[in-house]
């Protein structure tokens, strides 16, 4: 498969060297610097953030915390994070060595987030939207009932205020610690999407690395337009699970954004540097036609 199909929307039309794995056992990057997970080069934190957490050398798109992501997409000054208390949840009384509520507490302390989603009002190219950004740092962006409630409320907010929905999805899938309750969240989030769709509001989904399981198999791909970040790994079952279950040899580039583009599953692979403009064009087009 062509690794750089022409359809990829990129800032400059130059071939980039493929990411080489960084040498192992390097000393930790000194404070104030960030090491690229792809090529291993180090950059000043400020420079890295200015590059939207994309490696200036190899182009690897590093993970973006949800709050940062919302800031990257919103028109300057338009962002208003919606404070949402979704409570404490432990439907199964789950304990796998560490009680589930302790895991939640740790994730909250680490990320300063309530749950996986950051829900915000914003404008993109002056089109009012609700941003629903997932944070992979919050228990792997997993979908539990708290996250499901956040997303559903986000959809309701979009409908109530006539805003479009822009969801940035990155997740390992359902949150195993909530068992069947987490499975039900796929239906809950889908119900939210149905409401947005029925209201005739635009819904744009951005898939970031990685996006799997029950998140991909629900709201992440129920949008009017699905965009994916370069090299993002996206699928239902993970590659390791597939290899173990079927002994299938995985094709080159399997489950990457580019692979899905070639298979007709996403509308475009979009570099982060032009993501905001791409989303803006789509929102403007959909609004203009109404």
């Amino acid at each position, binding site marked *: 498969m062509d690794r750089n199909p022409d359809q990829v929307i990129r800032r400059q039309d130059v071939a980039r060297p493929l990411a080489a794995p960084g040498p192992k056992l390097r000393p930790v990057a000194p404070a104030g610097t960030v090491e690229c997970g792809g090529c291993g080069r180090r950059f000043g934190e400020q420079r890295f953030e200015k590059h939207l957490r994309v490696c200036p050398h190899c182009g690897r798109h590093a993970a973006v915390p949800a709050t940062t992501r919302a800031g990257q997409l919103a028109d300057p000054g338009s962002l208003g994070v919606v404070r949402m208390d979704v409570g404490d949840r432990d439907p199964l009384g789950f304990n796998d060595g560490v009680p589930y509520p302790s895991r939640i507490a740790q994730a909250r302390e680490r990320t300063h987030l309530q749950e996986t989603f950051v829900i915000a009002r914003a404008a993109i190219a002056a089109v009012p939207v609700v941003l629903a950004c997932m944070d992979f740092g919050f228990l792997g962006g997993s979908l539990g009932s708290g996250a499901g409630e956040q997303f559903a409320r986000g959809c309701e907010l979009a409908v109530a205020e006539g805003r479009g929905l822009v969801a940035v999805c990155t997740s390992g899938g359902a949150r195993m610690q909530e068992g069947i309750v987490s499975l039900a969240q796929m239906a809950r989030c889908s119900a939210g999407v149905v409401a947005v769709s029925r209201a005739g509001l635009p819904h744009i989904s951005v898939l970031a690395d990685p996006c799997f399981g029950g998140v991909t198999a629900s709201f992440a791909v129920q949008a009017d337009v699905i965009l994916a970040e370069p090299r993002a790994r996206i699928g239902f079952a993970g590659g390791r699970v*597939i290899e173990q279950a079927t002994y299938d040899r995985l094709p080159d580039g399997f489950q990457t954004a580019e692979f899905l583009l070639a298979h007709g599953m996403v509308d475009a692979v979009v570099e982060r540097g032009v993501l905001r403009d791409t989303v803006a064009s789509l929102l403007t087009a959909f609004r203009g036609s109404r």
Partner: protein
Amino acid sequence: MSVSTETAERERTAFAAVELARNPGRPRALQVISEAFTEWTEMRGDRLFGDDRAVVGGPALLGNRWVMVIGQEKGTDAISRAVHNFGMPHPEGYRKAQRLMRTAEKFAMPVVCLVDTPAAHAGVAAEERGQAWAIAETLMTMLQLRVPVVSTVLSEGGSGGALALAVADRVLALENAVYTVAPPETCAAILYRDAGQRARAAAALRPGVDTAYEIGLVDELIPEPTPGAHAHPTVTVAALRGAIVRHLDELCTVDVDTLVQRRAARYRAAGG
């Protein structure tokens, strides 16, 4: 009893329940279709790529009511299990189900789903053809379907692969069935990075359908004769048939807009 013995005992019991649900003698979708329905005509193919035998369906008479019955079939012997891929659908299976649901809607036929899958198929071909997309679209279709929908978990309801056919006005389950976010083997691989710890995962996950019933994802548990449906499958199917008819009788008196609204509200509230 020491703590560790107690834990081991709990894990053994939990996994025994999963094994009971996997008993090959339990009624399968095709058995339910042949014993509880008449005049079934099978509709095959998704009109896009192929025909997935893990999902079977078509119009049939349930008593004197025409319905669209759609079921996940695991197979009953070595050959039929291979043919039906152990009840693990590919995207084509879900797209066929959507096609049948749309046909049902056109002719105002209630939809009856029979869920019996360890999980949606995990494989290269399934991913290439958009397994996640197929499941996500089926969820959307079921949420908006303008006919009554009754789903029953027969034995194993695993992952989004099961939920895709279980977004319904009424969800029933045979009492010894399991309904889980993923098979215990997969959960163990995810949580403990070791599929061998499936019993530990089973104990933690509470896979029995009573859990789904407690949280309101399942509305009614259909009692099974002792020691389980595998011993008396025909008796079990008769009990299930009675319950499906009863729920359809109720649902068919409800105005369609109300039905769709209630279904959306139900799943909006799912999981508290």
